[in-house]
């Protein structure tokens, strides 16, 4: 499909500017990556409400917690790999447990970080964040949805993790389509297989759905942009209709979206299922598109997975 590309980081910056304009309680923190995460734009506009903590992610989360329990709505940003792994205990103890109103908006998530390689490719961040009580996990599909997600988490009281990518991603949602935390959206209706995904894999699934249609297969594409709390109702409705499911995520298949979906289905409506995502391994350097191919994050992979699960349905 011919896609228009959008930048999630740019939309994050836009959303922050809009929120910052309206709400003086919004404070933004970064750990020396503000020009990459684009919190620098908020910093330029509202310097008194921006704090750079330097290269110190543990302190980033603790300081954010202190501001949050003092009545501030705090956005804390850095790369996803550092925002979740480097300071997981600080997030657990100072943010999740005390229910601090901190929004961790991490950029450069997933394999498409590209050339920086495995040290910087967060493929475990969804897993790390979704095990924490009180924490919401949101993985917007594109820039448009990133903007809406950032605005939505600012209104929600409690800790949230918003996962954004580095590269521009295809625009799969409409500017006027509604976004609600905890609500999945059906981007394409179908009856033979459910393709459930988040982040830029939503676009990949839409491409796969096109390819499947040419083979006479009707695929339903579910944008599961909130990984936690998972919209079990929409998921079950879709899978009850189609009878099988493929999940797709730019994340390890261990404990990411696929696992969250499997957890619901296994308990409420077991169905043939396949998970597309990175296997149990680290990434490597390369161009974003090359890496997506190498790690099987492609429409071809989703298409063949769909055919496989359809074949496993008991008829």
């Amino acid at each position, binding site marked *: 499909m011919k896609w228009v590309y959008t930048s999630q980081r740019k939309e994050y910056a836009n959303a922050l500017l809009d929120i910052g304009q309206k709400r003086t309680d919004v404070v933004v923190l970064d750990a020396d990556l503000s020009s990459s995460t684009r919190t620098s734009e908020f910093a330029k506009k509202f310097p008194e409400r921006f704090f750079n903590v330097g290269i110190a992610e543990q*302190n980033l989360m603790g300081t954010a917690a*202190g501001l949050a329990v003092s009545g501030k709505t705090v956005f804390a940003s850095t790369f996803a790999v550092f925002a979740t792994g480097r300071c997981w205990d600080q997030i657990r103890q100072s943010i999740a*447990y005390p229910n601090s109103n901190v929004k961790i908006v991490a950029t450069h998530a997933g394999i498409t970080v590209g050339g920086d390689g495995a040290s910087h490719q967060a493929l475990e961040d969804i897993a790390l964040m979704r095990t924490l009580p009180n924490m919401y996990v949101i993985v917007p599909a594109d820039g448009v949805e990133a903007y809406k997600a950032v605005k939505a988490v600012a209104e929600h009281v409690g800790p949230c993790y918003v996962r954004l990518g580095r590269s521009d991603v295809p625009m799969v949602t409409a500017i006027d389509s509604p976004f609600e935390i905890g609500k999945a959206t059906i981007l394409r209706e179908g009856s033979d297989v459910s393709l459930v995904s988040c982040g830029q894999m939503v676009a990949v699934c839409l491409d796969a759905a096109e390819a499947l249609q040419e083979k006479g297969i009707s695929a339903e594409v579910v944008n599961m942009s909130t990984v936690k709390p998972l919209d079990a109702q929409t998921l079950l409705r879709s899978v009850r209709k189609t009878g099988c499911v493929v999940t797709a995520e730019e994340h390890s298949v261990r404990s990411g979206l696929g696992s969250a979906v499997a957890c619901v289905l296994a308990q409420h409506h077991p169905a043939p299922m396949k998970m597309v995502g990175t296997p149990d391994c680290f990434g490597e350097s390369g161009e974003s598109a090359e890496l997506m191919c190498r790690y099987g994050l492609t429409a071809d992979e989703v298409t063949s997975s769909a055919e496989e699960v359809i074949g496993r349905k008991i008829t």
Partner: protein
Amino acid sequence: MTLYDDRTIQMLEAKANILRRHVIKMTYAAQSGHPGGSLSYADIITALFFKIMRFRPQEPMWEGRDKFVLSKGHAAPVYYAALAEAGYFPVDDLLSLRKLGSYLQGHPCRMKTPGVEISTGSLGQGLSVANGMGLAAKLDRRSSRIYCLLGDGELQEGQNWEAAMLASHYKLDNVTAFVDRNKMQIDGPTEQVMSLEPLVDKWKAFGWNVIEINGHDMRQILDACEKAAGVMGRPTMIIAHTIKGKGVSFMEGAVAFHGKAPNAEEYRIALRELGENI
């Protein structure tokens, strides 16, 4: 500088003694908990809660309040005792410490206990949170002061030094921290496990105003807090030399009572030494 009269000092010393008795009763009732590190800063927390800090127990979220962060969360018993004596919740509830369903968890929990500003327990995180509170007070132009109590052993956690940099970088003169320098940690003396000295020089090098006191001398604690409040543009670190288990002879300087409750015999002796006959 305020001159505190003898009556005030005596009143505070008597209050500290009451808090120490609570610590013995609470840990005995729970048959677990951390008496040693609670007793060592009993005088400091008494000075803060019964003289220095402004707060309203009937209105725990009052915006103008000063805040206390217990970074070494395991020393919760004396914190709870201070909160109860200050009027945040009934003193009788102190004996529910660590019991199922109690709002007095083994380590402080913001969501359960009135007056607790932030959950702690995993060491080394309190100073960062206190700094965040200090930044918020500055943003809101509130005169609130933030007090943070650090264990000396927990200074081995690197996050403290990230926080030390931030507090001086952002000139957080509304943040005052104490190190409860009892020189003991679970595995032994701090200088044997992982040496912290020269501690004064370290905090000075990080840009802090540093004051050294005897952490069991009420007058010195009050004076240090006053001096800290008068310093502009810099956070203050009060290094309080203390004795772990202070007030109970067999607990003083004894690593064994870091995380162990007294038995029946020890319980009786401890309370007797603290002036209470049972």
